């Protein structure tokens, strides 16, 4: 009796202890897991906004024509549902034999900012943040140093001692933004336009860090545009309403320019400072300017080879 007692005492508590501790641990683990599920419950809201079809969607360049049609139909329906607007989303492809180039005559530009506004409307930018792909720097005459410039100038323009430098995506021929993207969500098309697949971008914003011209924008929130103000003429790779959490940029209005029209910023410019065209077309105005004016490009030393030129008369 006395010889079994101690051994019982030694073994029993351990077993009891074991089951009790296991139960306690199990309870704690369950509690923790439950609390975790509760903590991340806002994700359910986000999941509702992402359909299975969107989640599974392949990269733009890998979609078959039928898949593309499905995707576009889905996006149009979503725009209708979220924004109440009937839109058509086209899939504008580059026109063979075209290379688009932009130039701005800085002697003429007076900093009125109509291009900024036109971009805002044309490209269905978020209204609250007053987003636009164009920024205009007010620069003191006598310097080319952007550090002297200001993007937040106000008052009557033009001021006598200032000139104005509009900057947007330069559609670089050696685009650092494309190189850095980890998932090839952004690339350069044959006509020189750098585009983003808004349904493939993971929102890492590496391209935003890489671009030397502050040309990229991130959708920090879901864009808000009133139904009446939605521009219904859209394209998959350009001005369709962007999803939250992805990067976007100027596309030289490819939904217009690939259909033979001019960019919205050019049409809105009251001074005629902006010139746009196909550099491969020998008779184009833009070609004449590049051949005859003393043009320059921004931050040439970085080797990005912009397709965007500036000149003075």
């Amino acid at each position, binding site marked *: 009796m006395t010889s079994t007692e101690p051994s019982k005492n030694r073994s029993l508590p351990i077993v009891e202890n074991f089951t009790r501790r296991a139960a306690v641990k199990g309870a704690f683990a369950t509690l923790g897991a439950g609390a975790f599920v509760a*903590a991340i419950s806002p994700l359910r809201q986000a999941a509702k906004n992402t359909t299975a079809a969107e989640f599974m969607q392949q990269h733009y360049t890998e979609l078959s024509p039928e898949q593309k049609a499905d995707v576009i139909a889905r996006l149009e329906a979503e725009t209708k549902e979220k924004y109440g607007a009937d839109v058509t989303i086209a899939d504008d492809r580059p026109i063979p034999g075209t290379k688009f180039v932009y130039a701005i005559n800085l002697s003429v530009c007076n900093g009125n900012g109509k291009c900024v506004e036109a971009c805002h409307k044309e490209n269905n930018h978020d209204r609250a943040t007053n987003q636009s792909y164009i920024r205009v720097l007010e620069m003191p005459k006598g310097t080319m140093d952007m550090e002297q410039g200001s993007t937040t100038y106000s008052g009557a323009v033009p001021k006598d001692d200032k000139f104005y430098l509009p900057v947007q995506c330069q559609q670089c021929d050696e685009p650092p933004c494309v190189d850095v993207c980890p998932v090839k969500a952004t690339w350069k098309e044959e006509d020189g336009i750098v585009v983003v697949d808004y349904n493939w971008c*993971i929102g890492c914003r590496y391209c*935003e860090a890489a*671009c030397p011209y502050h040309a990229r924008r991130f959708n920090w929130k879901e864009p808000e545009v009133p139904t009446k103000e939605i521009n219904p003429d859209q394209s998959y790779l350009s001005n369709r309403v962007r999803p939250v959490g*992805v990067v976007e940029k100027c596309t030289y209005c490819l939904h217009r320019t690939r259909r033979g029209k001019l960019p919205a910023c050019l049409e809105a410019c009251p001074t005629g400072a902006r010139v746009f065209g196909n550099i491969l077309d020998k008779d184009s105005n833009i070609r004449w300017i590049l051949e005859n004016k003393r043009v320059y490009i921004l931050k040439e030393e970085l080797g990005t080879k912009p397709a965007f030129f500036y000149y003075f008369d």
Partner: protein
Amino acid sequence: MSSIPANETHITSYPRFIGRSLWLATEGSFGFYAWMTALTAVFLVGANAWANQVAGGMIGTNMTDQVSWGLYIANFTFMVGLAAGGVMMVIPAYLYHDRKMHDVVIIGELLAIAAIVMCLMFVMADLGRPDRFWHMVPGIGKFNWPISMLTWDVIVLNGYLILNLHICGYLLYMRFLGRKPNPVWYVPFVMLSIVWAISIHTITAFLYCGLGGRPFWNTALLAPRFLASAFVSGPAFIIVAMILIKRLTGVVGLDDPIATLTKIIRVTILINLLMVASELFTEFYTGGSHVSAAKYLFFGLHGKTALVPWTWTAIAMNIAAALLFLWPGLLSLKWRPLLVTACMMAFIGAWIEKGMGLIVPGFIPSTLHEVVEYIPSQLEWKVTVGIWAFGLMVFTIAIKTALPTLKQSSDH
């Protein structure tokens, strides 16, 4: 359970090993449970904040199109350094055959695991579309390798994680089976992990220094500086961890490794300061637009000074820590609290310098020379602290799992 019985294979004994480790790792004193509960609570706050960020968009952060990376990427960068810093235990242990270090080297390897887990979490937290994470998975997504440095970073970080999981897992498993580890199965991996540790921090530096449009980052000194500061912060963390382990668990034989690490920091902290000085000289003596970011960092630009207090705190801490480390008395046992203070100063100094002090000035002034300031939002702090809590949980559990091994080696 000393070795595999005849009727058992690794298929059955490995899960048993995992189960047993988990069981042991969740055994502990009241203090241990309190610590884990507190960490869990903080982690849950972070998880909730992150879920809100995903649901509501990253507007909840204070990042902007001008300062498009902030606290998350800052912490990510620092954590890569911490992960790489553990190698400062591995090198003495395996290349210089420091027996004492060899006995406890697993602490450094476990730290690497916890740190890399945190790195991956910080990257996830920074993504605008975490649901599209699979786009980055080679094979099913579209992996822009080898052009994008970020894809390299994904490879080296995950590789480093797997390497360390293998090394630690193998050693602990062999101990569980009561067998002597076969060097063939881990020494080559340890050697590889030394090179790999250097690579993770070098590639992370390349993320930034390859960007021509960001003069503040565009310097060849960035990668070496990253390494030097990693070899301060990593050992500093490990020293504090070892002092705690000694206190709380009675593992002995930690004092020699602590001394070795202290001597390592003594050198690396000076190298780091030297490189900072060299960089500052180049920036300020040259002047021009190259210097605006540094000006912003140290003195403020156009009256905007949000980072200035951070910077000077970091510098003060780094210099004070460097002086303390130079003092030979710091090695003596009676000055342990001072050693902990010095380590903490070096750690926080590196955290500011490699984090906010590195990432944010890359964006200020912006590429169009706008000065838009950035101060992390409450949501960002919550997510960040939550990830830290999770990392500490992983580290605590990992150390607990390894305790029998650590104790055993301190027995002989």
